[in-house]
């Protein structure tokens, strides 16, 4: 039945092939773009959606900089922290040497032995105080938090050794081969020992494009002035109100410093992922437009074909073809053209995917995406041809007997 249908359609198509070839070409390019674009978007969305390990929605940052004569960094930060921690609605606050996910931060290298031989393991570190673990909202799964008396005073050259560290399980695994690292000792480049006193389940560090984003360590030290960065965690729903309060109070409480900014932590996350997000938005927009243009093109061309073939359709109806036969004729014709395009497009999509994976170190194109793309284009084609096919079926047999 279908085979009998297809032969005359095919021969008609081949005799009048230019329009069909053009539609097939569109479908091919659309498939290649669609499949690869969706694949890239999926990777970007996954990247942005990775768990941070941090209570990111309830944290804000304050940056204060002392600049006038007589500014006392230790006293000011002490007062500020005491005030912040006293606010109802604030769960915890800490001084921090960096802002997670911001793109700026510090790292050093840890070694297995005091001789600092062999391949070291990089650690993205943050100087925090006893409030650090709570203020970040990270989950301590083994060991303990820093005590207030363990926090080292500021030290601009970072000359004094830090004796203890709380690290992520990922970093512990990289260093010791096990996440259960409490009590284990690692060494910095100068061979000074650092003891693991706590392990946190997971935390993302500073650089979202770094492959060791979760190799994070918290070190007990007050960061050097005159810049102080506070990381403040509030109870859900109160962050914005407390930010406003903090900005007003801190700016007025000490005229020898300025409050550089008060910003939510997700501001930094969003900024770091801005390139990925823009890329995803652009890809989705252009791919959607491309789908629309292709669908409209198929639709317009099918409409035209119906108009041109009015007499032919009328004749077919007059000699006994049912409405359903006419609809089927156009749907099958469209399906054949789309399929030709899809076959060409699949090759093109795989080729583009291959080039992309080579040039940009992306994983190879997943074939499920290709299968999905093929189905989508078949659907788009049939959808676009449906209305013209229905119009064709409405042509009355009497048209055949009239002259135009």
């Amino acid at each position, binding site marked *: 039945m279908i085979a009998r249908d297809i032969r005359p359609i095919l021969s008609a198509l081949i005799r009048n092939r230019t329009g069909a070839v053009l539609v097939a070409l569109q479908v091919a390019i659309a498939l290649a773009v669609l499949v690869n674009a969706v694949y890239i978007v999926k990777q970007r969305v996954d990247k942005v959606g990775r768990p941070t390990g941090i209570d990111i929605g309830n944290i804000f940052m304050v940056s204060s900089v002392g600049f006038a004569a007589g500014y006392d960094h230790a006293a000011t930060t002490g007062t500020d922290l005491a005030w912040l921690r006293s606010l109802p609605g604030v769960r915890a606050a800490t001084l921090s040497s960096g802002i997670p996910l911001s793109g700026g931060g510090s790292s050093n290298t840890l070694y297995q032995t005091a001789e600092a031989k062999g391949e070291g393991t990089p650690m993205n570190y943050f100087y925090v105080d006893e409030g650090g673990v709570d203020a970040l909202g990270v989950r301590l799964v083994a060991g303990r938090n820093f005590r207030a008396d363990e926090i080292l005073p500021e030290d601009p050259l970072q*000359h004094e050794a830090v004796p203890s560290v709380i690290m992520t399980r990922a970093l512990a695994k990289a260093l010791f081969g096990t996440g259960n690292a409490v009590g284990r000792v690692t060494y910095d*480049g100068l061979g000074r020992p650092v003891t693991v006193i706590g392990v946190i389940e997971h935390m993302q560090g500073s650089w979202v494009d770094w492959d060791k984003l979760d190799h994070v360590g918290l070190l007990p030290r007050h960061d050097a002035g005159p810049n102080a960065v506070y990381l403040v965690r509030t109870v859900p729903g109160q962050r914005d109100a407390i930010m406003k309060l903090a900005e007003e109070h801190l700016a007025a409480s000490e005229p020898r410093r*300025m409050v550089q900014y008060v910003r939510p932590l997700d501001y930094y996350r969003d900024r770091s992922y801005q390139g990925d997000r823009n890329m995803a938005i652009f890809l989705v927009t252009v791919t959607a437009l491309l789908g629309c*243009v292709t669908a409209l093109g198929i639709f*317009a061309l099918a409409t035209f074909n119906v108009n041109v073939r009015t007499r032919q359709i009328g004749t077919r109806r007059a000699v006994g073809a049912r409405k359903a036969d006419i609809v089927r004729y156009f749907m099958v014709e469209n399906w054949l053209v789309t399929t030709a395009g899809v076959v060409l497009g699949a090759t093109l999509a795989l080729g583009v995917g291959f080039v992309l994976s080579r040039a940009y170190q992306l994983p190879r194109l997943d074939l499920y995406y290709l299968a999905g793309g093929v189905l989508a284009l078949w659907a788009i084609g049939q959808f676009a041809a449906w209305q013209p096919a229905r119009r064709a079926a409405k042509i009355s047999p009497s048209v055949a007997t009239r002259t135009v």
Partner: protein
Amino acid sequence: MMGYYFKLATRSLARNPGITALMVLAIALGIAVCVITLTVHHGMSSNPIWWKSDRLYTVTLDSWDPERPADEKRPALPPPDLTWRDAEAVTRSGIPPRAVRMYKATGVLSADETTGAVRPERVLARVTTADFFAMFDVPFRYGGGWKSAADTGPEPVIVLSAKMNEHFFGGADSVGRTIRWDDREYRVIGVLEHWHPAPKFYDVNNGAFDDPEEIYIPFGWAEKLELRSAGNTNCWKPEDIQSVADFLRSECVWLQVWVELPDAAARERMQAFLDSYVAGERRSGRFQRPNNNRLTNVNQWLADNEVVGNDSPLLVALAFAFLAVCLINTVGLLLAKFLGNATVTGVRRALGASRRQVFLQHLTEAGLLASVGAVLGVVLAGAGLWGLRIMYASPQTGFTGLMHVNGWSFAITVALAIGTSLAAGLYPAWRIGRLAPAVYLKSQ
């Protein structure tokens, strides 16, 4: 004759307004997307000091860890910055007529008592030797830079960006006035014009499209005030650093060095100087990696640092794929339309119109369509770029200088529009011109 073709074309286009609108819109969207991506890509990959690219070189030396390269992903490259002592030795060679060593620091800029109450601003400062301004052709609105003597003093002089001059002095000529930076008084000797080299080629660390620093102070303040770097400081060697003097002697890299070399001879002399300097240091136990002393020009420097990024060429390719689909679409529709109207053409041919005339007539219609599409496309592209600028261009995110419709994007647009109308119109017009009139007259 063209006037007549034009009239025919407008009539024909008005006959099927839906399809005409679809074709115009397809061309417009295709062109708009291409112009937007190309403008942004061009902005990112341009050399903001192209007129001096054969004279400006940055110096990099491989003083890194004997065990591993500075950047595992690009092992052939030395670290992007220099140590304090290497930077000093290189800029004091006396070979380049101009040389700078510099880095960025941060501090709070605040108003002097005479200025009145203005909100203090925490700003990045470029701590640099005197040649910076002349070497990079930095435009001044008022005053100018400092003399080399001010570097060694160091003299308390400062150059302000246009933005800071606006903030603290309301945009007035502030040369000779004083301003405080980290609670120390400086005399304003120069105010810059708005200057946003994109990319920020002279220091691409921490964001190649960041705005330049807001203030400039003589390099001598680095040591005198023990100003820490606000940019990258990378260290590979375990060293016990107990004082700032220790730090300045360390193997940490954090300074940018640029030299201006007017000709090949100067370049060769500079290269020879670098090689002999490194050989000397090697004898005293430093520089244990393979010899890799580089003079890199601006273009190569931007390429080495992958300033353009991976996404931008991908977006341009996508835009052209989109334009291709739009064009194929238009060709298909035009062809269908021309053929659908072949009886009229047949009559014209039978009445004596030549193939050439029929071809030109249809090409006029395609050209008119593509021109309208191109104009609409430019409008859309302009709106798109304007929207992008509103959404994304800010000092925090950079990109300020990228999204401008400039002469370059205008030229690209015109080229695209002409190419598009030819591509869309030639084939259908040619096909219809080749029709034998009899076939179409007979069938009726």
